[in-house]
């Protein structure tokens, strides 16, 4: 992380670059921290502050980590009704904060939460939203009438991956986008960074809620108890209709597949041919000490669980070795693996696009090639 820019000490204000932060077991989710890293870069490029919005119960506890990962301002909205994600109250809080502080950019993880929340907020604010971006940059844009400076370029594959589109939102603010986990790099936390925590009062219409303790900006260190509770007029009010959907049950298991942390990924695609055929992919992964990945087509065919999906709408990986077996390599798939240190492609079609990103290519049938690889590796391993 670079040294704090001079404006770091300025008060939170308009034109910040925001990230909506999801909490996962009390700590900020990786995807949110990854986005914060990019938000930091975008804010530096724009000469403004990076902001993190965190909602829930115990949200304030995440503030220090968010500042270490690049936030200048952390907006904390705590209320019992925000304990678990629900569309209504979350959308109310986020759009309320946007109206109050007017950030120029708001980024969301393309999770089931972000993809539920962001469109609702975009619609309420009547602004644009681009889903599943694979890159975000700052640049200019001109039409016949107007020249726009420093817009957010929202870059994503579209139309089944046959094109890469750059989307802009010239006239409406904030500019909003969702990004999948793993697309941006996780920033190195810098515990010496400083930032401000802004506690936001949230109240239910009946006024029964446990709002934030302090409406004013304070240091990230243990917040000073403030005698002056922020006036009710400036609290964000949750209306009865925001709360009418009840969460009856939530069941979440720890991720069974750790693709992001894998040093070796062995991924199978259409060329594998069947659910049974995937056993071969699993054998190679096991032999090499790798994790099983898959193309979307293989997942859609039901051969392997969705947790294994690599690509724009799956997981993005950067392992030391990525083996693509029977994967043609659509742009969406390549977006999820083309930064791997080494890519080995095995495909019967010598013209398969996957060879364009591969370091090693084998034109051949994976059903013959993989057993040879396992045999060769075992011999070497024994020797």
């Amino acid at each position: 992380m670079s040294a704090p820019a001079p404006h770091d000490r300025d008060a939170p204000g308009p034109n910040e670059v925001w990230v909506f932060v999801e909490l996962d077991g009390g700590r900020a989710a990786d995807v949110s921290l990854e986005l914060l890293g990019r938000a930091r870069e975008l804010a530096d490029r724009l000469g403004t502050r990076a902001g993190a919005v965190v909602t829930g119960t115990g949200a304030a506890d995440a503030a220090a980590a968010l500042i270490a990962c690049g936030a200048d301002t952390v907006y904390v909205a705590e209320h019992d009704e925000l304990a678990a994600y629900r569309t209504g109250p979350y959308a109310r809080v986020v759009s309320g904060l946007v109206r109050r502080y007017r950030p120029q950019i708001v980024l969301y993880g393309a999770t089931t939460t972000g993809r539920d929340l962001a469109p609702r907020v975009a619609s309420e604010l009547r602004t644009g939203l681009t889903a599943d971006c694979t890159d975000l940059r700052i640049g200019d844009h001109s039409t016949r009438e107007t020249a726009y400076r420093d817009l957010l370029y929202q870059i994503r594959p579209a139309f089944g991956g046959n094109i890469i589109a750059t989307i802009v939102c010239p006239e409406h603010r904030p500019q909003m986008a969702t990004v999948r986990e793993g697309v941006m790099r996780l920033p190195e936390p810098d515990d010496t960074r400083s930032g401000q925590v802004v506690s936001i009062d949230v109240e239910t219409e009946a006024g029964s809620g446990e709002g934030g303790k302090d409406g004013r900006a304070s240091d990230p260190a243990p917040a000073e108890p403030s005698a002056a509770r922020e006036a009710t007029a400036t609290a964000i009010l949750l209306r009865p209709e925001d709360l009418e959907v009840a969460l009856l049950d939530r069941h979440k298991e720890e991720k069974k597949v750790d693709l992001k942390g894998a040093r070796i990924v062995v991924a199978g695609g259409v060329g594998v041919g069947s659910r049974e055929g995937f056993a071969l992919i699993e054998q190679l992964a096991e032999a090499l000490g790798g994790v099983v990945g898959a193309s979307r087509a293989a997942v859609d065919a039901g051969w392997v669980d969705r947790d294994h999906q690599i690509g724009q709408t799956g997981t993005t990986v950067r392992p030391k070795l990525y083996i693509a077996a029977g994967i043609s390599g659509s742009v969406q798939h390549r977006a999820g693996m083309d930064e791997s240190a080494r890519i080995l492609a095995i495909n019967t079609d010598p013209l398969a696009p996957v060879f364009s990103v591969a370091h090693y290519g084998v034109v051949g049938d994976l059903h013959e090639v993989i057993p040879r690889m396992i045999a060769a590796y075992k011999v070497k391993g024994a020797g």
Partner: protein
Amino acid sequence: MKHAPSTHAQLRIAVLVKQVPDTANVTGKAMKDDGTVNRAALPAIFNPEDLNALEEALRLRDRHGGRIIVITMGPPAAVQVLRESLYRGAEEVVLLTDRRFAGADTLATSYALACAVRRLGDVDLVLCGRQAIDGDTAQVGPQTAEKLGLPQITCVSRIDEVVPPRRLAATSSGLGTAAYEHRGSVTATRSIEGGYETLRAPLPAVLTITGEANDPRPPSAKLVLTYKDVAAEAWPDYDDSYLDPQSDAAEVCLIDHDGRPVCRARVVLWDAAAIGTEEGLTGLRGSPTRVKEIESVVLAQPDARMVEPTDEGITELVHKLIAEHILG
């Protein structure tokens, strides 16, 4: 007709569907030489998850009674997905088509769809697919819900229970205006990362349905015969009085050129005026986002080191990867 309109329709379900290019089955060159998308190479299909949404609607209708109204926005050719909906058992179909809708991003699309749902009057459930395969944005469902001021449950893999509303009087004077003894509710399970959550929303509500929810039924041969001539041509007729099940017009038949009744359903055609959209909120003008640039995907020349698929080639490759400390 099996599903005659009842005076106390238990559920009125609007299903929002989209005709999409079949991006998974490109039959020719996807891009023209000038870099634009070659739509001719992409056959148009019923967006897969919208079929799942229709299937959920059909199951609910079969269980509770009621009516299904399918809405699509698109060019006149999009009438094909409405026909497909009739073949599977939808009662009513609406095509939103107007030059003023063209070039819409998800916000402008949702606005037009929400205006159309409002025009339908009392609807208990709005269902649509989670996302369309041409953009995979999953934004239109939640944005339509927000425009309608209705609760949403997205990414639904199972509808657990629907308690139909009890209306004090059968009315269709506008969304949410009916007098209810109780509003009814929907309980649904949505897929989240590594698990699921179950939510209950009061009706009316908007649900987006995933492919996990069901296996859509095929078209019924009988219904295909009944409806195959539907809307062979579209005509600007905004008389939708038959949408009110109380109306005599509900029994009106589509008359063919020779004056013979063809079937009882027809395609209702609505333009921007018919659904009362505000100037500037539809189509490209109503869309905050702009496509700045489209790059056709050009592949780099392969510079992969090619390895023979023989024992010798593979063994040499494995040794090389071990020597590079790529394999341990």
